């Protein structure tokens, strides 16, 4: 459902993403791993059509993102990094706005809001201004926005960042459940999450894919059988810039 071919993106002289190709099918949950600044967010932004690629193609559900941006955006639910939202709005009006932007009205809008409020446990804060919410609630409000139109494709940029262990667990199992009939890409720094929620993982370093396989396969490639050791063996810390 998501097909990325030779995707590249430069910011000035810096190549943030360099010839990345992969595919995600229905029922797959792809974990996106890599050190900070490896190009995870940039890749996701290109898939959602927020920024154009310098080279390469992305297609979602058979539609090219550059040629049919609006149609592609209809099919994607996107949680940007740091989960931004209009902080002066209440949770309810923010969700109403998101639903309306997705063309949902009347009874289907009410139904959609009910569904995501339940999924993301927002019942208790519906009338509150987003400004006044804790980080976990803010995060889940933005996640609710991404799920409101029940999209076929979900792109989640660090969906568990800033959540407490209970909330992390909750979001992980939510991703796993939804992954059964959607195509999901999510990025994370937490390696156990990959084992817990992903059907496949890609490790990206300095804009290039350095490993692609099921969590089990990746673990098997490490001498110790631990994903963390494998991760450390194939990626470089950002302090090692000069050796690139």
């Amino acid at each position: 459902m998501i097909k990325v071919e030779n995707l590249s993106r430069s910011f000035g002289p810096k190549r943030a993403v360099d010839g990345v190709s992969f595919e995600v099918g229905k029922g797959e949950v792809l974990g996106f791993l890599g050190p900070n600044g490896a190009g995870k967010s940039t890749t996701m932004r290109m898939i959602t059509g927020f920024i154009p690629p310098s080279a390469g193609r992305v297609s979602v559900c058979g539609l090219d993102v550059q040629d049919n941006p609006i149609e592609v955006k209809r099919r994607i639910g996107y949680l940007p990094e740091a989960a931004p939202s209009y902080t002066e709005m209440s949770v309810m009006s923010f969700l109403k706005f998101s639903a309306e932007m997705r063309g949902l009205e009347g009874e289907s809008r009410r139904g959609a809001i009910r569904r995501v409020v339940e999924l993301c446990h927002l019942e208790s804060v519906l009338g509150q201004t987003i400004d006044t919410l804790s980080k976990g609630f803010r995060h889940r409000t933005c996640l609710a926005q991404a799920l409101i139109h029940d999209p076929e494709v979900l792109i989640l940029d660090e969906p568990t960042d800033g959540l407490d262990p209970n909330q992390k667990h909750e979001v992980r199992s939510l991703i796993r459940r939804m992954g059964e009939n959607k195509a999901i890409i999510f990025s994370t720094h937490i390696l156990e999450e990959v084992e817990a929620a992903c059907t496949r993982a890609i490790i990206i370093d300095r804009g290039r894919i350095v490993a692609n396989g099921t969590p089990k396969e990746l673990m098997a490639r490490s001498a110790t059988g631990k994903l963390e050791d494998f991760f450390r063996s194939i990626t470089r810390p950002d302090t090692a810039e000069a050796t690139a």
Partner: protein
Amino acid sequence: MKGYWPGIRTIAKRELSAYFESPVAYVFLVIFLLLAGFFTFTFGGFFERGEASLAAFFNWLPWLFLFLVPAAGMRLWSEERRLGTIELLLTMPVAAWQAIVGKFLASWLFLIVALALTFPMIFTVNWLGDPDNGVIVSGYVGAALLAGAYLAISCMTSALTRNQVIAFILAVVICLLLILVGFSPLTDLLARWASPWVVESVAKFSVLTYYDGFQKGVLDSRGLLYFFSIMAYSLFVTGVVIRNHRAG
């Protein structure tokens, strides 16, 4: 066009409610009405003029708008960039131009509401004398167009930066330039050493030249064309700025 309207409307509705959900709208309205009244009745010499008209009010409006319109418009895009919500907005199924137009229309409507709230002045002159209400209507049309032009310029500067202060100052400077090229104390000075046609053609770029036409009661098509071109041009540049920002 019909397919594009729901997206524009939804964005405009959200933008308008954002004004009223924060104190911005109320502070703006109170300050605008206070200052408008103050300028009209003191510097404008509303009573001393000895004529039943709103000239005292309209004469000061370009200067009052010079600061207040950029203040109302500066957050439009810079706030989206600062909060990161621009990423949400532009990954929803609408084109960037729909978002630009929606936001602009919402703010313009807000400014028109502010203008409409000066209605007690219309009652006052009608009670005191016998003004030409046609001139008053065309004066208000000119004022609304002027507000729209300033606002579109503020939109453009707001897209340039995530810092609202910078957006504000840039907008004020551009709007000020558009006033000054037709401001008579300055054009008189210019006329001393430049040939008259230079002075005249420079003044043709000034908002005052066209604004004054509306204050005389003339709904001039050149005036309409002038103000709408400024709006269209500035909103177009806003689109280019946003696209370049994403293209990096």
